């Protein structure tokens, strides 16, 4: 089964309903969607910056790999850039498979791969000023 891919890096919001509509297709029994949003913890807004050409290429590779490994019918990865307010979508991943186990595994693996290696950065704007977020894969101090 060829996996249909929808991969974007964009400023506009994500049309989640459209993605789910496209995911409902022959052979699909389970769809898992991840929606990452701007949390109000310690910031009022985020600014997202991407090395766009490299980010798109890497997202496509990640989506294609997961699609093959988990025999997905459809996978969507949409990562936003620009300034985003609290509560806005940052990243939406949709994985559509025959059964739930593959859809869950694929969605999670795509998310972890994005956090590990896709060239996108976040700057937090808060009451105490602004700061670049150190991703989870920033090397330990002194490393």
């Amino acid at each position, binding site marked *: 089964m060829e996996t249909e891919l929808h991969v974007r890096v964009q400023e506009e919001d994500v049309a989640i309903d459209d993605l789910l509509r496209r995911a409902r297709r022959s052979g699909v029994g389970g769809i898992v969607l991840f929606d*990452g949003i701007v949390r109000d913890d310690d910031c009022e807004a985020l600014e997202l910056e991407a090395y766009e050409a490299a980010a798109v290429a890497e997202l496509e590779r990640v989506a294609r790999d997961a699609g093959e490994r988990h025999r997905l019918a459809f996978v969507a990865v949409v990562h936003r850039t620009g300034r985003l307010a609290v509560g806005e979508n940052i990243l939406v991943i949709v994985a559509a498979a025959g059964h739930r186990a593959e859809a869950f595994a694929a969605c999670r693996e795509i998310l972890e791969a*994005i956090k590990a290696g896709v060239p*996108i*950065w976040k700057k937090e704007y808060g009451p105490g000023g602004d700061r670049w977020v150190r991703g989870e894969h920033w090397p330990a101090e002194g490393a």
Partner: protein
Amino acid sequence: MTVRVRFFAQFRERYGGDHRVEPAPGATVADVVRSVAGTGADEDSAIGPDGALRDYVILMRNGTRLEHDEAETTTVEDGDELAVFPPVAGG
């Protein structure tokens, strides 16, 4: 020979996002990055006072990652795009 050097995130703020440089024949990737970024004593500089790339700095040449030792030995070619950035934080 023209090479494009791009910086992202905190490095973009420090060095500017997009540079066109005309390196001498035989210049390496690291030479070209140093020619734009210079050296810095503070931790947020891409290059340390000894002229070496900070450990955490990531380099790409035409979309492909380059290890730091490769950057010291790989010579640039006309039309190359180099990218210099900190560890990613998307998602």
